[in-house]
């Protein structure tokens, strides 16, 4: 896996639920057909009320009208990111749009598991309130080994909370890769 994640930040508030990440009406598209998959990128974070997207200014869409990819790589948010439904389409849509990591103050359990076990985006937590120190569009750099994030626009560096047990699953690329690596799926190998 890469050791550095660098790109533009997209800043959101607290309690961003899965209906805001990918509204329920879009859950009908295939997650395996490449053409339909692009639609998950197109509608990623489309349920966020416009004035609450791209803080502190607001009214900055995550994905521009007519586009399938976002110019933002790292999402910065307050507490309880991903609360609400169990839809794995949520972290999937963020990945399809081009996001690689989220830095939030905390996560809802199912969303967090989905990020890790599906290998979609890395869900980092931080004790600091980054939403007040990062502006949408700032250039951020996450150092995965050092477990830090630096705002290259302002020069400030923060420590990220350790990923703990789940770092092994993140590093493997998801629960299946991890389980094979740890020989937890003996007797259930894929049929060639």
């Amino acid at each position: 896996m890469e050791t550095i994640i660098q790109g533009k930040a997209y800043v959101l508030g607290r309690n961003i639920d899965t209906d805001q990440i990918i509204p329920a009406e879009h859950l009908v598209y295939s997650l395996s057909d490449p053409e339909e998959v692009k639609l998950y990128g197109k509608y990623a974070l489309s349920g966020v009320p416009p004035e609450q997207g791209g803080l502190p200014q607001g009214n900055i869409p995550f994905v521009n009208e007519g586009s399938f990819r976002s110019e933002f790589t790292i999402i910065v948010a307050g507490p309880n990111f991903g609360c609400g439904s169990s839809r794995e389409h949520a972290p999937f849509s963020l990945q399809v749009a081009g996001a690689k990591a989220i830095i939030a103050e905390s996560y809802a359990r199912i969303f967090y598991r989905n990020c890790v076990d599906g290998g979609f985006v890395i869900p980092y937590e931080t004790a600091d309130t980054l939403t007040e120190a990062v502006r949408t569009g700032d250039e951020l750099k996450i150092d995965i080994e050092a477990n830090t994030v630096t705002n290259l626009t302002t020069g400030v560096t923060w420590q990220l909370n350790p990923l703990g047990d789940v770092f092994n699953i993140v590093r493997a690329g998801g629960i299946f890769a991890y389980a094979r690596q740890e020989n937890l799926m003996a007797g259930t190998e894929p049929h060639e």
Partner: protein
Amino acid sequence: MAQTITQKILSRAANRKFVDAGENVWLNVDILLTHDVCGPPTFDIFRQEFGPDAKVWDPEKVVVLPDHYIFTANEHAHRNIDLLREFAARQGLPNYYDVGTDRYKGVCHVALAEEGFNIPGTVLFGTDSHTCTSGAFGMFGTGIGNTDAAFILGTGKLWEKVPESMKFTFEGEMPEYLSAKDLILQILGDIGTDGATYRAMEFDGEAVYSLPVEERMTLTNMAIEAGGMNGIIAADAVTEAYVKAHSSKPYEIFHSDPDAPYHSIRRYNVKEMEPVVAQPHSPDNRATVRSVQGTKITKSYIGSCTGGKLTDFMLAAKILKGRQAAVPTNIVPATVKVARDLEIETYEGVTLKKIFEDAGCSIALPSCAACLGGPADTVGRSVDYDVVVSTTNRNFPGRMGSKKAGVYLASPLTAAASAVTGKLTDPRDFL
């Protein structure tokens, strides 16, 4: 070592005598539930990871209940049902409840109970966040994503972090103007939408045990709205009677040890509580109905896994009998069984169905319907600046359709009273 009921059930599923809060354990899964939104992608991952000819670990333990997007012209939604049907046929799944046949049931969490899949002491995972509903049967139930579900499909196992438990005790005799919905909205207002993240929410006390199983399901159903991993109520004679009437499977009843460790314990006296709502746009934005009384509404909605059970309609009928709804009011029975019961069960000698029809309500076919918005042609979907009073479970922006709409989550009594006046109304005005 003393354990909570949740620890004991997870110990059993991990083949251990004791599991400690915070440790990650591998669990043997008793039932895996999925539906039309998350089933197809789960099956895709299963085939990708285990091979095109792989068989699920135990066909008897996979329950597939399509319920989300059923009565819609949306072609993608139809395709999802086709994908479920094809997978069920190829895998020989006996517990697939096909749309358009007399096997169709409706909302999965209510149908699981009706079809006898909720068994005390067992472990249920489901690709739906409200899988915690089944905890009302003294079992462990929690929601997961498609990848985790595909892992279970192939192996019958999943890792989980053993949760700390929070205890909520409701003392006193339930007043007629309160329902379980008021109790859980009270808790949500107290602890917030992340107040129980990664924890178990255990409910007990005289008021809880006076409730029928369906009302207890309303409590455990909304554990996820506090971020809870699971909600749980130890089984008693009421639970046992329900389980025996719906299943012949063996079950094991667990109780928390008296000295079990808790993250926190909260006590309530229901006699001191009032009807409450969750105001837009969060389930923890609690207010007493009295404090927002008079707020104009454009719609009332009574349905979903939270508020579309027979007991919910019994409560609504008490207020709607002999009265007229002043705003469009949707009655959406959770399941086919509930819909049938509306034609049979009576209040003061009149069937519930007749009461609702006479009140001018529209009765929809059983499914999740507008609880989560759904495709554009979904019954009851909010539009523009709708102000909805609803017995459902979430009111985040856009949840019931329109991003501009506001949703007040309420008990069936409050939703019915507000339907009659066209304004948020405390049910005590009619009782």
